[in-house]
């Protein structure tokens, strides 16, 4: 008698489904830990290696390698800690990580207040007070203000933080224009503007061939250069309603409207990139002057070796007219509340506050770390032009500013160039209206942090 197989199609499908589901579940279950090898009698247990995530903003190779050299030194001295890195470019990567509850264990940022004010960072006062590395006088007191919220410190100044408002001139461009350095380098915005009108060159096609100087539309340096108190810390209020801002905006705008904002935009599209990269207008002898900071001597030494540039005081106006001014800025490291390894991250913070880390980054990049212990031993003659920042800008400035300790600082920084300066340059608004509207917007943002 022939018997039929009991495996029907339905049974086969049922068994396959159960098998597939079981396989999927098995794949999801974490592997059981391997049994530990019995320790030799008397031998101490090996310390477990911990991996921490450290993120910073910069992406250029030169900078990544320089910071990595410091991290390699840290890992050599702390063999149980492995530092994994990523670059967040001060943008969405870090925001998304915070929003998802998975920020790195430690990260750098130049505008930390937005995180501190939102209760996203670990308070560091206890660690700082207990530290033998980060002593009271290690950094200038004012450096702490960029990340101190409601009297609590959430950051440690780190990696790069120094005077950053020098006028840097390219002698080659001056010479082509028939001018001499340093005699013809202006210290006044009106003189600079007249020079720009005379010496900005155009090619036969009507494009800008050589730009003399184009002021930065961003907010950062202008409070120093015009002697404006941009933020009232007592009242937690931005002061874009100060009439002095009108002069600032009109000063910036005239450079753009004189040559055409679209032509300037097109010019910088042809010479993109950061000031100190080889293809930039400044390093390519297509731009006479730029206002920038302490990182430039080192970076130009690496990216435009053999070329000489001249460093002088930035032109000043308004209440600061005729005065020596500088802004100080402003990178710090901080430990998110959600950090999985805060203790190990703190060791990295202390490492960055040491002289060795500062020396490695200085040698590889030319950046000046914020700790005074490094300033005492820094080889100022290592990079041409660094002397101006260290011995003049840092010591002789009569007006010194740092980033305002406002929780809405990121909003102010990103909005000023577009919502105020561009609005005036392109004729969308007059200067009073542009500033009034921006004052309203930034006040609204600031108020969110004090609403409850």
């Amino acid at each position, binding site marked *: 008698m022939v018997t039929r197989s009991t495996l029907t199609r339905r049974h086969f499908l049922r068994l396959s489904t159960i098998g597939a589901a079981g396989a999927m579940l098995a794949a999801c279950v974490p592997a059981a830990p391997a049994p530990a090898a019995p320790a030799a009698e008397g031998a101490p247990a090996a310390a477990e290696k911990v991996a921490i995530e450290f993120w910073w903003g910069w992406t250029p190779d030169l900078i990544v390698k320089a910071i990595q050299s410091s991290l390699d030194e840290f890992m050599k001295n702390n063999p149980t800690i492995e530092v994994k890195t990523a670059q967040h470019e001060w943008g969405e990567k870090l925001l998304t990580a915070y*929003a998802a509850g998975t920020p790195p264990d430690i990260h750098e940022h130049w505008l930390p207040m937005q995180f501190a004010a939102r209760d996203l960072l670990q308070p560091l006062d206890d660690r700082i007070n207990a530290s033998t590395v980060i002593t009271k006088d290690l950094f200038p007191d004012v450096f702490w203000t960029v990340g101190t919220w409601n009297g609590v410190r959430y950051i440690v100044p780190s990696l790069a933080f120094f005077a950053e408002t020098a006028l840097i001139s390219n002698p080659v461009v001056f010479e082509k224009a028939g001018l001499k350095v340093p005699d013809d380098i202006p210290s006044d915005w009106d003189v600079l503007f007249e020079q720009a009108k005379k010496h900005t060159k155009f090619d*036969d096609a009507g494009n800008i061939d050589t730009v003399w100087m184009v002021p930065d539309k961003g907010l950062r340096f202008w409070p120093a250069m015009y002697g404006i108190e941009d933020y009232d810390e007592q009242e937690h209020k931005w002061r874009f309603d100060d009439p002095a801002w009108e002069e600032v905006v009109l000063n910036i705008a005239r450079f753009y409207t004189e040559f055409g904002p679209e032509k300037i935009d097109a010019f910088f599209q042809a010479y993109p990139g950061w000031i100190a990269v080889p293809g930039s207008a400044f390093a390519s002898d297509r731009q006479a002057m730029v206002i920038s900071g302490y990182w430039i001597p080192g970076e130009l030494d690496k990216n435009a070796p053999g070329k000489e540039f001249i460093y002088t005081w930035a032109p000043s106006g308004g209440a600061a007219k005729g005065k020596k001014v500088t802004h100080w800025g402003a990178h710090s490291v901080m430990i998110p509340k959600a950090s999985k390894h805060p203790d190990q991250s703190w060791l990295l913070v202390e490492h960055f506050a040491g002289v060795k880390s500062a020396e490695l980054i200085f040698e590889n990049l030319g950046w000046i770390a914020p700790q005074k212990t490094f300033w005492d031993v820094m080889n100022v003659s290592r990079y041409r032009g660094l002397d101006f920042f260290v011995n003049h800008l840092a010591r002789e400035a009569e007006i010194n500013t740092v980033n305002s300790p406002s929780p809405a600082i990121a909003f102010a920084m990103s909005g000023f160039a577009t919502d105020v300066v561009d609005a005036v340059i392109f004729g969308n608004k007059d200067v009073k209206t542009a500033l009034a509207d921006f004052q309203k917007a930034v006040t609204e943002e600031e108020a969110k942090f004090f609403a409850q």
Partner: protein
Amino acid sequence: MLTNSFRPWQWTVRERRDFARGLIFILPWLIGFVLFLAYPIAASFYYSFTDYDVLSRSARLVGLDNYRRLLFGDEYIGKVLYNTIYYVIFGVPAGLVTAFLLAVLLNTDLRMRSLFRTLFYVPAVVPAVATTMVWLWIFNVQYGVINAFLASLGLRAIPFLSSQELVKPSLILIHCWASGATMVIFLAALQDVPRSLYDAATVDGANAWHRFWHVTIPMCTPAILFSLLTGMIGAFQYFTFAWILTNGGPNRASEFYAMHLYRQAFVYLRMGYASAMAWALFLIVVVVTIILYRSSARWVYYGGEA
């Protein structure tokens, strides 16, 4: 076997078992749909009624404030809507016409036709960011290919991306260049046109233009409708090229709705307002889609209809 009406309480045991089995088979997709589509959509709707800055854990309910800001309180909304509608009105038809003409050309007996089809389709598979970097340099006012050629003829440079007037047409030009995917759809539609129609038209005395206008295009109208709808939906969400090439400049002349939305969410940390913008965009797209679809009864010909 399931009945046509969904009444689980009336099912037999076998029908319930069958339904459960079906659910198990689609469970992976269903989980993905709920986690990555349904939940974010519902969350976005909720956030549109809140003040939520992404970084904070909690969102504060603010009622219709975000929608009020969208209608009356955002000084740039008019400009970004204008830019977006400009792109939809001019960019979508330009892309369709380019794709259709290319498809017509490639449907002829051309030497190396396969090679040309491949070449014209390549832009559709090249990553958008890579494409953008290339166009950045093609359009470059001093060193770009086009302006270098013009300079060699002694002509003035064209400021493709730095002129408020030319930036949108330049972006539309890139869109036309990248219309390979639409071209493939039209090519398929063209090859589906029965030869007998062309023969009949020829017998009736139709010349090439008549055959094109009265046979080719009507027979391709379903594909045209599909491409128009999908193109329009994509155009309302235009983002990548403009974000990388111009970042909305100069003077927000190339700031599109999706870019403004993104900026509100991730630069200004106004996720609640950005969510409201997203829902407003959804409504706009739905309305335009319905209008287009209703109008299609007048101009779309489905073969087989009386």
